[in-house]
């Protein structure tokens, strides 16, 4: 068998070129340009870009809102890994193993529906639920006699970001569960039958059969969830706009506010670089940890 002929190689490049060009123009160039802009002080109202070196990064280090935003993102990621990945996995296993017939499809749909709702709609919906006067959450606490637990959930610095994170879990757990369901449906039934013949319980089958065989999907779900947690913006902006007193900002909303409210484009570019480094590092780390460990029976 001979290698690819020269004309074949050229035609291959020709086919690949449009995609590469699009990536270069819309992904790689903006990343590099953003890195350059992060070294400048620049306002949209002035054509002057002033080179400031690493000053924007030094300002980031000293900015308490940047650190609280980073903490909020980390909290978002940690909670999402537990509730979306962990919860989604358990939910998928329960739906696949314990629920039968039409109910399975109905429940799957019910859990998945929030994922297709617009973030703006869910944000507004939860604004009503968290309303301190007429909201369902405080109403429920009232009914349960837990008056002391009532809060202005989105209006207090201590509770705002957690209220948003909770909404996000509600919205996304069904989506991750469906990913796991797809992975679980690809597991041959014989493996479970063999496990049950050997005396395994359902819980043991979950840990010995299901969990190892959805490892790749778990990795993918974690990458999606962690990256998503560091890119989160819309739900925060819709529900609190980063308030009160900047307590619920994430890196995304702080970037947006710095650029489009405070007119600090260079500073916002520096935040974008940090977000890029975090999400890229998290993805590389997770890929590295999951490398070559795919389980086959």
């Amino acid at each position, binding site marked *: 068998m001979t290698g690819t002929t020269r004309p074949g190689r050229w035609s291959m490049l020709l086919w690949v070129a449009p995609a590469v060009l699009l990536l270069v123009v819309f992904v790689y160039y903006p990343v590099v340009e953003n890195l350059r802009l992060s070294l400048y002080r620049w*306002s*949209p*109202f*002035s*054509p002057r870009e002033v080179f400031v070196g690493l000053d924007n990064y030094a300002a980031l280090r000293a900015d308490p809102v940047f650190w609280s935003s980073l903490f909020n993102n980390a909290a978002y990621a940690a909670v999402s890994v537990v509730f979306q990945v962990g919860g989604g996995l358990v939910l998928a296993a329960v739906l696949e193993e314990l629920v039968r017939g039409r109910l399975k499809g109905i429940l799957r749909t019910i859990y998945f529906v929030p994922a297709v709702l617009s973030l*703006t709609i869910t944000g507004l919906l939860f*604004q009503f639920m*968290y*309303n*301190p*006067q007429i909201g369902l959450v405080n109403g429920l606490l009232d009914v349960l006699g837990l008056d002391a637990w009532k*809060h*202005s*959930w*989105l*209006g*207090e*610095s201590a509770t*705002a970001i957690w209220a948003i994170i909770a909404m996000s879990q509600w919205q996304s757990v069904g989506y991750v569960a469906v990913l796991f369901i797809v992975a679980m449906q690809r597991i041959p039934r014989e493996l479970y039958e063999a496990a049950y013949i050997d005396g395994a319980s359902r819980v043991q089958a979950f840990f010995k059969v299901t969990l190892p065989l959805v490892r790749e999907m778990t990795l993918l779900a974690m990458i999606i969830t962690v990256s998503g947690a560091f890119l989160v*913006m*819309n739900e925060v*902006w*819709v529900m*609190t*706009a980063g*308030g*009160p*007193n*900047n307590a619920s900002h994430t890196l995304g909303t702080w970037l*947006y506010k710095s*650029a*489009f*409210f*405070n*007119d600090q*484009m260079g500073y916002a570019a520096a935040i974008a670089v940090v977000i890029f480094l975090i999400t890229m590092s998290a993805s590389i780390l997770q890929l590295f940890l999951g490398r070559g460990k795919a389980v086959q029976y």
Partner: protein
Amino acid sequence: MTAIAGTSRHRRTLACLIAATAIIVGACGDGGATTAPASAEPGATTQPASAEPGATTAPELEGSISFLHKYSDPRYAPYFEAVVAAYMAEHPKVQIEIQAESDQGVKDKLRVLAASNTLPDIYFSWAGDFTKKFVRGGLAKDLTGDVTGDWAARFTPAALEAYTYDGKLYGVPITLDAKYMAYNTKLFADNGVAVPTTLDELLAACDTFEAKGIEPIAFGNQYGWPAIHFMTQLNPYYVPADTLQADYDPATGAFTDPGYGKALDAFAEINSRCLTQGANGISHEAAQASFLAGKSAMHYIEAVEFFALTEKGGAPADLANNWDFFMLPAPADATGDTGYLTGAPDGFLVNPASEHLDIALDFLDYLTTLDNAKKMVADLGWLSPVQGSATADNTFPQNVQTIEDIATAKGMAIWLDTVTHIDVANAYLNGVQAMLDGTKGTADVVADVQAAAASAKAASE
């Protein structure tokens, strides 16, 4: 009248993306039309009449311009579309491309367009520091020599003054706004409460309502600006006007006058005795719904929102027929000037790089004719800076009363969150929110504001 300072207000921050939708209106008139009777119906496509000089006597204009406004709301956009269509009908060789944005979206879009040097020929801008940014960047045309004679004479002087910097005019005002305490006259009468004339009387009125299980003032501060509007009014009450003017200028701001602390203390007192608790978690609109439903006795509101309190604007008859308004009363021990009223005009700037300045100016002239201003008042329920545009014939009584009240005010205290440097504005926005949720006290906020003012001063140097 003099403006203490000027600029925009931050409202309804729902939009999170750079809004880039442009509504292209390519409607072109039949070319033969000159003028037609104004329509009082929103969404009408008939041409408003123009009885003003300049609209029909200008030399034949030819070309295409772009026009960016922030009134994309379906309730408001048709008015601007109708005026543009009417203008193009009178000028068959002119095309005006409308770019309609939301209140939030326009802030993003203007920054993107300014940064890329692609501003439209005519674009919206709030008075005050927002406009000053364009002026400093050379992105706003000096209109001093253009808005003269009959055109200039149409406007309430304070409205033009809000767009005047260093003696030069940079904007053409389109709306006029002021902040008032709307109140439910039936609840006041039923509970024997008189309209308060001092801050203490207001607090006592709040106590009366509170004791009877009625929420005194419906208040939602989810995005921070509603509380800032209180501060916009309270600062002039406690701080002498000259000091205030110097402090609102980034180059000289220090905020060391003890009046700033007193104003914050007054707000804290109003909050504890009058306002909805947990307000940071409630939107302004949700609070307004409480007032509309008759569950709250008062609601601090902009005059441009008055329309929402009328039956035509969707209010229940019980409320629509039983409301009035008063200015937030001053404290008896006011050390500042009690004649200033919170409010500002909104308006349009002209891109100095426009290839068709003649059309841009002629269209702005047309947009602000008395007839078009009357149509705006009738269609949208807003107030116009064009004198004589609001009468008992074309709007509800409270709007007419507002115009009269604004005329008696000594000056306009422009929105604090936009009249000051952005660092100072943020210190106030965040600080007052922190006061409401109990994480900061007056002294903390004053210290934050002073630090922000020092930072702004250093930056301006």
